[in-house]
């Protein structure tokens, strides 16, 4: 079957000038067979297994990149939540396991490894607590390890003890990496309803319901969607906008599906899911905020932004679902502030606040992401921000998350600089009224009712 000149030209244009890319090929590896009596044994087993399974990950990804001419930006690994593998280890010993993950990641040539995680939405085991308490040390002493903690689900409610604890952990993590504007906190995500097959960092882990080893692929392309929308006339109605996004998303997803299947085949493992997420990069034109603005908002964050994002997120999913048999992960639109030039501009212009971002998370794929706040923000306030976000996820039966950076020594209006994909961001204003007594109560917020949905 031949192709029309326009079809070939369209694909080439998407890659060369609209920044279509495979954002990540993430190999999920089960570490459930790596338990042991002491940290040294576990660390050794983990290192051996990861380096064995992922030996050819980078090589295969580079081959595919060359053959199909689509950049594969990141190669990553997610593993079974470490709290499950190493539930019997003392807090001070956890660094050995994290170092082993870090070393394995470096050895196979990947930039991030996710799964330094605990699932504590209902309660903590002793191991969970030890792991969580080791997070600040681990994220400040390792380079590639990413951590996540699931503190709420729609079925279990919100573990408010964990929410309170995570406020302190985030603050401590940022403080321990103060020379780099608190970058440690950029590798730490607090989740509600965390997906088990998400390929995107920092929240990726290999869930307990997953198989031995899978390939999950994340595709991206805000630039492609923006370019497609900019070809529409100004008078195009929302039906036409939705249709355009769907078609674009279909094509992007198909590219990802092909790469994912071939990667799984060549690595002798199975294909897990395709995560179709519009993930912005700091590059100009690769912005979610610009897509929303192209629908007619003068600045992202103005009234109307939540509606525009709802349309975008839904259309992306509709196009993607038909293009792949196994869509999973987070699938939707990400709104990380520091990684999106348009979002940064909107914050600088005074159009976008944390409160508006919170509203946006009700309809987008994840949550409050890569937001820098003043370093002297009390831990209770950070915990309360988490609590609000978890409540949104719990009630709306969706994944929500918080990745927030209390930048040490910085105040509102200052800048933090993380470099690379993590970008830079203005420090945002936080509501100064204290939620201290609320956060100190402890206990659980009960699981919500699933009827009378009003």
């Amino acid at each position, binding site marked *: 079957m031949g192709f029309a000149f326009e079809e*070939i030209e369209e694909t080439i244009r998407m890659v060369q000038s609209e920044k279509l890319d495979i954002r990540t090929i993430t190999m999920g590896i089960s570490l459930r067979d790596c338990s042991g009596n002491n940290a040294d044994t576990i660390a050794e087993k983990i290192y051996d297994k990861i380096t064995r399974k992922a030996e050819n990950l980078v090589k295969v990804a580079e081959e595919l990149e060359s053959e199909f001419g689509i950049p594969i930006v990141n190669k990553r690994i997610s593993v079974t939540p470490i709290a499950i593998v190493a539930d019997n280890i003392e807090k001070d010993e956890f660094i050995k396991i994290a170092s082993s993950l870090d070393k394995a990641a470096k050895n196979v040539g990947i930039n991030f490894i996710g799964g330094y995680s605990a699932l504590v939405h209902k309660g903590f085991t002793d191991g969970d607590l030890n792991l969580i308490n080791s997070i600040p040390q681990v994220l400040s002493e390792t380079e590639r390890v990413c951590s996540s903690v699931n503190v709420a689900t729609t079925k279990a409610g919100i573990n408010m003890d964990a929410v309170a604890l995570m406020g302190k952990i985030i603050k401590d993590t940022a403080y321990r990496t103060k020379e780099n504007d608190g970058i440690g906190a950029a590798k730490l995500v607090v989740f509600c309803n965390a997906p088990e097959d998400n390929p995107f960092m920092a929240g990726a882990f290999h869930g307990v319901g997953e198989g031995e080893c899978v390939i999950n692929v994340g595709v991206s392309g805000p630039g492609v969607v923006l370019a497609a929308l900019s070809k529409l006339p100004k008078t195009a109605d929302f039906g036409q906008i939705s249709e355009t996004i769907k078609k674009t998303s279909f094509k992007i997803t198909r590219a990802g599906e092909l790469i994912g299947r071939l990667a799984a085949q060549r690595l002798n493992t199975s294909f897990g899911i395709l995560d179709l997420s519009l993930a912005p990069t700091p590059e100009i034109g690769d912005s979610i905020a610009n897509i929303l603005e192209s629908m007619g908002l003068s600045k992202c964050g103005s009234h109307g932004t939540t509606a525009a994002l709802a349309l975008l997120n839904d259309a992306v999913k509709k196009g993607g679902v038909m293009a792949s048999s196994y869509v999973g992960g987070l699938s939707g639109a990400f709104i990380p502030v520091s990684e999106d030039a348009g979002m940064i501009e909107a914050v600088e212009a005074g159009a976008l606040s944390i409160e508006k971002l919170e509203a946006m998370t009700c309809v987008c794929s994840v949550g409050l992401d890569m937001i820098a706040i003043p370093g002297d923000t009390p831990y209770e306030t950070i915990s309360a921000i988490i609590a609000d976000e978890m409540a949104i996820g719990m009630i709306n039966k969706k994944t929500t998350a918080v990745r927030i950076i209390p930048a040490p020594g910085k105040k509102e209006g200052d800048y933090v600089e993380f470099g690379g994909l993590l970008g830079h961001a203005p420090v945002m204003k936080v509501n100064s009224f204290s939620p201290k007594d609320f956060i100190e109560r402890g206990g659980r917020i009960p699981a919500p009712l699933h009827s009378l949905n009003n």
Partner: protein
Amino acid sequence: MSEQKAIISVIGVDRVGIIYNVSKLLAENNINILDISQTILKDIFTMIMIVDIKNSTNDFNILKEELKNLGENLGVKIDIQKEDIFRAMHRL
């Protein structure tokens, strides 16, 4: 196995000898050209070739590198991609 198709794209400023040089390199590698089309829009020359690389005497990556180098000499951007990606994106 029958044909193994790949798509070569050449994008850049038009000049004498682009098709000649690309075709020459392909002939040297025993690659058959199945189809060529080109347009010139606002001085930007775009040529797309569909080729059969089944009997190519060189490894795909070496061929890709040779085409890239040729492009640099001619002042244009040349890439080769296996056909499957276009099939995935444009055919149900």
